[in-house]
């Protein structure tokens, strides 16, 4: 049995995940992801329909700290980790591409 993920699916998912794949990688991931989805297909039990969806093991809701100001991390130190900065900003290539 195969859950059948197509090459087009792999390309689509890679685009959503901001990954560039070679044609060899597309073929490899198509084969591997299909087999993993077969494994995932083993989730089968009559009781699942009545089971609540569980996102988390704890019943915590809206955990808040006291609203007291305290020092955060130093800006210079955080900027120092970035590949490129300008003044107090992270610098990146232009957001909008040139029209082709």
């Amino acid at each position, binding site marked *: 049995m195969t859950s059948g*993920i197509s090459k087009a*699916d*792999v390309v*689509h*998912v*890679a685009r*959503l*995940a*901001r*990954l*560039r*794949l070679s044609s060899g*990688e597309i073929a490899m*991931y198509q084969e*591997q*992801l299909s*087999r*993993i989805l*077969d*494994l*995932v*297909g*083993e*989730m*089968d*039990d009559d*009781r*699942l*329909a009545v*089971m*609540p*969806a*569980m*996102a*988390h*093991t*704890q019943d*915590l809701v809206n*955990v808040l*700290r006291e609203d007291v100001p305290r020092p955060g*991390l*130093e800006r210079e*130190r*955080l900027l120092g*980790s*970035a*590949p*490129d900065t300008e003044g107090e900003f*992270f610098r*990146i*290539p*232009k*957001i*909008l*591409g*040139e029209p082709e």
Partner: protein
Amino acid sequence: MNDGILALDAASLAAAVRSGEVTAVEVVETYLAQISVQEPEVGAFLSIDAEAAISAAAALDRARESGEELGPLAGVPVALKDNLCTTGFPTTAASRILEGWIPPYNATVVDRVLAAGGIAIGKTNLDEFAMGSSTENSGYKITRNPHDLDRVPGGSSGGSAAAVVSRMALLALGSDTGGSIRQPASLTGIVGLKPTYGRVSRYGLLAFASSLDQIGPMAATVKDAALMAEVIFGHDPMDATSLAVPVPALVDGIEGGVRSLRIGLVSNLLEVAAPAVAAAVERAAAALAGEGATVETVAIPELSLGLPAYYVVAPAEASSNLARYDGVRYGFRGEGATAEEMMVSSRSEGFGAEVKRRIMLGTYALSAGYYDAFYLRAQRVRSLVRSAFQEAYSRFDLLLSPTSPTTAFKIGERSDDPVEMYRSDVCTIPSNLSGDPAISVPFGKEGGLPIGVQLMGPALAEERLLRAAYALEAGWSGE
């Protein structure tokens, strides 16, 4: 004296440092000498800072001389999995995308270990972003199993396990999302504890699957693991999921025995194990019964559904967590004329094959049209696993199973087959899905390779779990 230092357990070593019987500098020099012999063969570490370790030890010795009371880990060399943020070492999660990154803060567990007098000796290798069961997915190097250098140490905390078993560190921290502390502990013959979800702050742990990740101790003995657990357990306001519950005494009372404990031997997890592993688990059951526990066989078939559910939930959460690695604020940046091209290059060149596989799997499971069939269904399985555990824990105090279905496998043997690799997590995954604690304890060997058995317990039952683990450890002759 060096052999003497290496022979001491953590509590005895810390006591010797506190009393001045040995200095912390002597301890660290001894362990660094051990590293210089073992590390070239084993490859457990991604970074080591001998100078910083010695100067931290010297500061500890000066504090003692000036009359300061030292902590419970005084002078104890500790190895830290490289997905824990440290200001003193680069933190890479074994990924090229974080090569050379030095975090601006320490993980809470790191601060707690240092405050207790522990010496951070180095950062250990792992499967990239903790995704794997062999440490072969590291972006940097292979770590070898000290029992057989042709075999894997397990994973993803394989570097921490290898460091402890080859005595390059006395204690280590690992993280466990689907078995990443317990399975390498099993494959290297040490003790590994995955605490109850929320027992240990995740602040400063590079996130893989946030609803499953938990940091825990790895040690040569159960008592050492308990000592480390006492240091790292406890509420932390920096982690909203950290539990505000009291931390029990874990070392005192650990010798209390298992008399009158009801222990369930999980038959369907026994069936998936190799014969030698299953036999070891049965011997462990007999040993516990011999110590006065009541041991009965129980089938909990729902636990086997945990494996497929995990391979939806964990990649789904990972695909979201790893979206932050975009080449903007930290880590590796690839080329690109536009911001999006730059992000695509950074991620495509920075992530390894397994990480990409899981990101794509998670993205697919969460994408339009597939959410109900995969993610929602996996969440329902998670409830089913939890309710099956709850039912079992109404009849049993603890459950016993293999940790890993096999002993350590050969390097390269499973690396081409992700599904085969994933299946080896079947015994450890259920406790992550339910958020309950579990521990792996060495109990036997097959062809010179260690076998671990797993004890599982209900939420917050670490005291009971460690007590039974201690009894098991005492009940194994070492053969």
